[in-house]
């Protein structure tokens, strides 16, 4: 298995700052903004965005957490049910501009599940999507509004994001399941 680093701590920092600016540029209704992080790493990215926005405009944006387990569409294929985390949204999402935040956008199924979970809480005015990395290979008609980095990948590769809040390091890597030496 081969590992290739594709992003370091500084890059992540710059991307977060940029996306924070983009969010403010795109949405004039500051008081309607809300951030929702997708468990696990989306939560930390959302909270970094919240801090950045506070630094830029000195406004407090509410932040929530979604756990998508109960809306996964592959539960039927699993033999052990995954652990269910808590969804914590302590504000009314109705008429808010909600920005869902996740680390990697891939098939789009996680985002679909997050949209469904969010739906149980009310009817936002708009929902937007912010991701650190878009690696392609969409299986659903979903597109991110804010992308940190577009990263062409092949299906047998894995993209892994590391954040200090839950990992020992900060950055992102591509793990190639079939290293070149295995390709015949």
């Amino acid at each position: 298995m081969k590992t290739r680093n594709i992003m370091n701590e500084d890059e992540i920092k710059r991307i977060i700052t940029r996306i924070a600016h983009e969010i403010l540029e795109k949405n004039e209704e500051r008081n309607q903004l809300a951030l929702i992080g997708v468990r696990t790493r989306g939560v930390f990215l959302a909270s970094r965005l919240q801090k950045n926005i506070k630094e830029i405009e000195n406004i407090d944006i509410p932040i929530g957490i979604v756990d998508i387990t109960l809306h996964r569409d592959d539960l039927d294929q699993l033999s052990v049910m995954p652990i269910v985390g808590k969804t914590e949204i302590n504000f009314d999402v109705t008429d808010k501009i909600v920005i869902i935040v996740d680390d990697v956008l891939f098939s789009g199924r996680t985002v679909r599940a997050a949209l469904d979970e969010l739906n149980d809480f009310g009817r936002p005015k708009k929902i937007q999507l912010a991701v650190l990395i878009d690696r392609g290979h969409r299986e659903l008609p979903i597109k991110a509004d804010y992308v940190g980095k577009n990263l062409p990948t092949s299906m047998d590769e894995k993209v892994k994001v590391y954040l200090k809040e839950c990992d020992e390091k900060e950055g992102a890597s591509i793990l190639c399941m079939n290293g070149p030496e295995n390709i015949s």
Partner: protein
Amino acid sequence: MHEWTRKHLLSIEELSKEEILTILETAESFKDISLRPIKKSPVLRGKTIVLLFYEPSTRTSTSFSLAAKRLSADIVNIPVKSSSVQKGESLIDTVANLEALKIHTVVMRHSRAGAPMMLAKHTNASIINAGDGCHEHPTQALLDMFTIKQNKGSFDGLKITIVGDILHSRVARSNIWGLSKLGAEVTVCGPPTMIPVEVEKMGVKVTYDLKEAIAGADVVNLLRVQFERESGMLFPSVREYAAMFSMDDTMERFMKKDALIMHPGPINRGVEISSSMADGKRSVILEQVTNGLAVRMAVLYLISGEKNNSEEA
């Protein structure tokens, strides 16, 4: 959290501490769902759950029924009166017939101890024991433990007293197993005729004195006095029982300040507990009912991971 790999939930005795904690933690996530505007999750869509109740039960069957609906399962309720059991059909035949309808889970209440274990051996469906005779009532104990955890945070060194007809109580047995595994100290209290032989070997202390039992207890769980069982031999009269074992205002001063009062319901007001205690500050009796829903959702969710062949066409 620990992975859940069991096909059935038959007893608390067979669960490990980790498995109990997994259920309790999963229940925490599910408790929030009931607070949302839309109290429904699609997670068990396509699963069929049968509630097979051979004993009347309003609260347990309602709780399971609602839990299954909140998780979008299809649910069939078979109370004893309308089932063919009264036509003399054997339990195994009844379930074989249900199984032919491709069900996933049977939630079962039965007056005979061990009936769910027997069924688990003879069927492909997952079995959830919703109370079997005087043996166990796992989900009741789990919701009791969940309520204690929500109020007390942890179980280590917690002193828990169970008062009443321990001999005939499946709630007591499940609670004794579960609480001891989680590190609590359990005391049982009741007249000697209602304390089963060698119950100490299950890891509990025994006392016949209510004051002694509640002094220093963090939680007092009062069992329903079961008039319907052959109680004539066990205590002379309800009046005498209440005089010696009723949790009323006079007991208040023997209790710890922050001690909780629990009851699995339905309550005999004025017998095992006075109204003022049942409705008072310490009482978490209604909280138990609310938590029952979350715990049963968690159990249905965890059990549904089992891909049993009963569903296959």
